[in-house]
């Protein structure tokens, strides 16, 4: 994306001349600062600083703001892959402004020029951060991570859906590639339990599920019969190569399961649906991460 070209209002060429004449002093100060901030060697910092200054001067001279923004964005995109954080980028921009201002003031320059400089650098930063987030998005998609909020949304939508499910149905819902949820609502007698098991297995085959989450939160009484049916269902699913997770099991029910001789190593349980979904995603080597990117545009310009 190219930032829009704007003509700087006051004495761009003059500012460019001033910067050119003080380039060496400015460079020394910036190199020391940037090397520290980016944890790079003086050599690397020197190269970066000189390139940036040259581009800044070019941009001021020509009045074309993208002369600074584009190269800076490209540089940032490359750095993002090496782990550069947007916060570091902002600090670089700040450093550039501050040090340049010092030089201009020292040279008796008019500080109204500073405003334009700041705008220019700001534009470059925005371009750079956008490039960085794009690069990171691609990376993220490759590691298939999900924001926690999305997992919570999925659980919420599922809960709403469950409320609408009538007792006699036992639909199987696909929530992610190879992950199914079987929400059970209402009491489960023998014949219903059998239908549930049959529907689940058919669902496993048609969706090619690796993991199924059986949610019994909506079952008022999970007695020994229900537990026996659940165990049978889990065993049948495992014959198809599918892992099962039971969620919504209260402490009392878990205890009665142990008394029934159910091997809790065979049957995984989780407290609630969200935990169940997270378990399922993790089992498939999918990551769940928190959302953490601040909104850059508010901070700059």
């Amino acid at each position, binding site marked *: 994306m190219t930032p829009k070209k704007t003509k700087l209002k006051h004495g761009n060429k003059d500012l460019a001349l001033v910067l050119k004449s003080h380039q060496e002093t400015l460079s020394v100060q910036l190199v020391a600062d940037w090397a520290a901030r980016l944890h790079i060697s003086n050599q690397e910092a020197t190269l970066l600083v000189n390139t940036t200054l040259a581009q800044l001067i070019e941009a001021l001279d020509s009045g074309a703001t993208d002369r600074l923004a584009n190269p800076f964005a490209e540089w940032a995109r490359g750095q993002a892959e090496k782990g550069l954080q947007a916060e570091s980028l902002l600090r670089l921009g700040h450093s550039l402004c501050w040090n340049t201002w010092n030089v201009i003031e020292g040279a008796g320059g008019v500080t109204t020029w500073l405003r334009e400089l700041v705008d220019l650098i700001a534009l470059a930063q925005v371009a750079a951060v956008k490039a960085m987030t794009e690069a990171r998005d691609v990376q993220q998609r490759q590691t298939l991570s999900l924001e926690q909020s999305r997992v919570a949304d999925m659980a919420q939508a599922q809960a709403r859906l469950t409320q609408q499910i009538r007792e006699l149905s036992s639909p199987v819902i696909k929530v992610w590639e190879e992950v199914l949820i079987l929400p059970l609502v209402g009491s489960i007698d023998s014949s219903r339990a059998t239908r549930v*098991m*049959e529907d689940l*297995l*058919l669902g*496993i*085959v048609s969706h*090619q*599920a690796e993991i199924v989450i059986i949610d019994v939160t909506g079952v008022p009484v999970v007695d020994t019969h229900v537990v026996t049916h659940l165990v*049978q269902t889990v*065993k*049948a*699913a*495992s*014959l*198809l*190569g*599918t*892992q099962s997770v039971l969620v*919504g*099991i*209260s*402490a009392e*029910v*878990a*205890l009665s399961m142990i008394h029934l001789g159910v*091997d*809790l*190593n*065979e*049957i*995984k*349980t*989780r*407290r*609630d649906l969200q*935990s169940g979904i997270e378990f399922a995603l993790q089992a498939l080597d999918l990551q769940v991460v928190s959302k953490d990117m601040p909104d850059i545009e508010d901070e700059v310009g």
Partner: protein
Amino acid sequence: MTLNVPRIPILQIENFLVASIQTELHDKTAIHFKDDLLQRIYDTKARGLVLDLTAIDVVDSFIARIIGDVAEMAGLMGALVVVTGLQPAVAITLVELGVEMRGVVTALNLEKGIVRLRKLVADDSDVTQPDVRLGETDPAHP
């Protein structure tokens, strides 16, 4: 009357054997198949076997036992067995019959079975009882 017992073809893919049972499994066929399989594992030093049961619509206690035997003996020869393609109706029937196939790892289809087998063979060394995975349990909060 001589019986022409059809042999079930056993293929080799990478260092695994793959056998897909396409015909009705008479007892004699099953027993010959077991013997052939074990012989092939021995001859090829295969690390794993995928047994595809997609076409089987009845697995009674006898057949289940043979499968379990194959898994156990293959294991003794250093090969892991993955059973694939069990039909839902068959899985349910097996569970209701109360028959357990110990030592048998399962997967939904042939492709997943091979992927699974590769993984299992890769982390091998101390695979003893691959029939059921251990997991943590989290009996709910009060």
